[in-house]
């Protein structure tokens, strides 16, 4: 049932700018570093002479949390808005499909869209590195994959909250406001204690305890999703 809802959901987001946003995030990040390295090529290549790939990844990773938080906020809101816009929830939920399936499908869709962003980010970073003349023999495949996926998995609690709020509130002001606040705050997260979920996307890539942090992100994300699911199942649809 969930897959059926998901297949309908892919149709619904056509032409809504969601795919555009999914691509814009990672491409924007890579382009920004392209500019950074392009303008200060000699200086930066000199500074990262020992490990140019590591230098590039470090610069990319600095901006991943804010891009991720913004992306999560906007994707959740845009996806939910497809249904809110003309009160389609009432039609959708009067179909013979469980609310659990509807909710899970939205979650999976958001997750898959973010996955696409992450793949684009990893691939884009590799392409940028090669364009900057970094050694093809030394491509750090594992770190490239980590820069894309580790922060994303650690940010799942935020995805769960944003999706929950966006889907249950018709007015998107609150979820978008909270999401943007989280994105802005994420710039300063290195000053936060490690237990703060907002810091997890940073920790998941630079450590310490990368694997543990990703695990914690998944667990907390699951708990919040379940709470959202229970609420979504019980609420009155007007």
């Amino acid at each position, binding site marked *: 049932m969930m897959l059926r809802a998901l297949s*309908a959901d892919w149709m619904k987001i056509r032409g809504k700018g969601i795919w555009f946003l999914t691509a814009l995030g990672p491409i924007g990040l890579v382009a920004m570093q392209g500019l950074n390295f392009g303008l200060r090529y000699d200086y930066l290549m000199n500074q990262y002479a020992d490990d140019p790939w590591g230098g590039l990844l470090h610069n990319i990773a600095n901006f991943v949390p804010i891009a991720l938080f913004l992306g999560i906020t906007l994707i959740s809101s845009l996806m939910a808005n497809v249904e809110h816009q003309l*009160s*389609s929830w009432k*039609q959708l939920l*009067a*179909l*013979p499909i469980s609310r659990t399936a509807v909710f899970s499908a939205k979650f999976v869709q958001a997750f898959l869209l973010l996955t696409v962003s992450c793949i684009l980010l990893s691939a884009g970073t590799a392409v940028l590195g090669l364009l900057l003349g970094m050694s093809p023999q030394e491509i750090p495949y594992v770190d490239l994959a980590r820069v894309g996926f580790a922060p994303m998995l650690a940010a799942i609690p935020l995805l769960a909250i944003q999706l929950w709020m966006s889907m249950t509130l018709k007015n998107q002001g609150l979820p978008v406001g909270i999401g943007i606040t989280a994105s802005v705050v994420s710039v300063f997260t290195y000053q936060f204690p490690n237990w703060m979920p907002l810091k997890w996307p940073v920790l998941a890539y630079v450590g310490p305890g990368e694997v543990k942090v990703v695990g914690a992100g998944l667990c907390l994300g699951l708990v919040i999703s379940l709470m959202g699911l229970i609420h979504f199942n019980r609420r009155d*649809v007007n």
Partner: protein
Amino acid sequence: MTDMVIQTKGLYKLYKKRAAVEDLNLEIARGDIYGFLGPNGAGKTTTIRMLLGLIQPTRGSIHLFGKDLKKEKMDILRRTGSLVEYPSYYGHLTAIENLETIRRITGGPKARIAEVLDIVSLTKEAKRPVKGYSLGMKQRLGIAAALLNHPELLILDEPTNGLDPSGIQEIRELIKQMPRQFGITVLVSSHLLSEVELMADKVGIIREGRLVYQDTITNLTAAASSGFRLSVSEPEAALMHALELGCSGVLNRGMMELGAMSDAKVALLVKRLVEHQHAVYRVEEKRRSLEDIFMQIVGEGNRI
């Protein structure tokens, strides 16, 4: 009474202690077109949302097709098509794509999309984005969506709201053919009796959350009669006959004015008059309009 498609018992919905629906007992039999009437804010939409499981009743039970909505919701929804208030659609998609999003969830063959578009005569417009449709077309698309899964029960909430007269007529004709052509039971809500009168077999009238009237439209029409006027050759003698038959009546400007009576009694009176060599020129029924009756039912208790 096993062939009740919709049956609610003691249904309540409270919003912050204010009852939107109060002790509602609906009974809708298979093959009926049931007109669900009431002024705006009387609780029609709340009731319909409860029937579809969109909102939870505070108290009471809902059975559709003899099954408990709480326990067998999926099975019930599979056999039900609905259009709740204004139509829901995805404006950037075409009619075909809109129906496809539903078909992907309910299953069924793709050919069904063309069929339902044909039923609501949208085939020609099917490839345009829905945001460019007129309200009437959107409403028809909503009905097409409701029909997509071959429902046995169609629940339509104010399907003619905001439509122009020709749009209203189109929708009405569409609804009227449902039981005949497809064996579908229809629940249609409206705040206009005149509209429901033209398509429904049975009406339920709701006021301030309570069902104040539930019967056939024929009985409602009968209640509209407030008496008869007879024009005869010899009114005084004729009135005696009428009074002998137990009618109440008076003479007024050479016409007999009689109270409400059954068809059989009217026939008996006319027969008697004719047998006694009276010439009966005219038998008129004095009728209040259904709208008056509706206002009376709806307004009862509201008068100061």
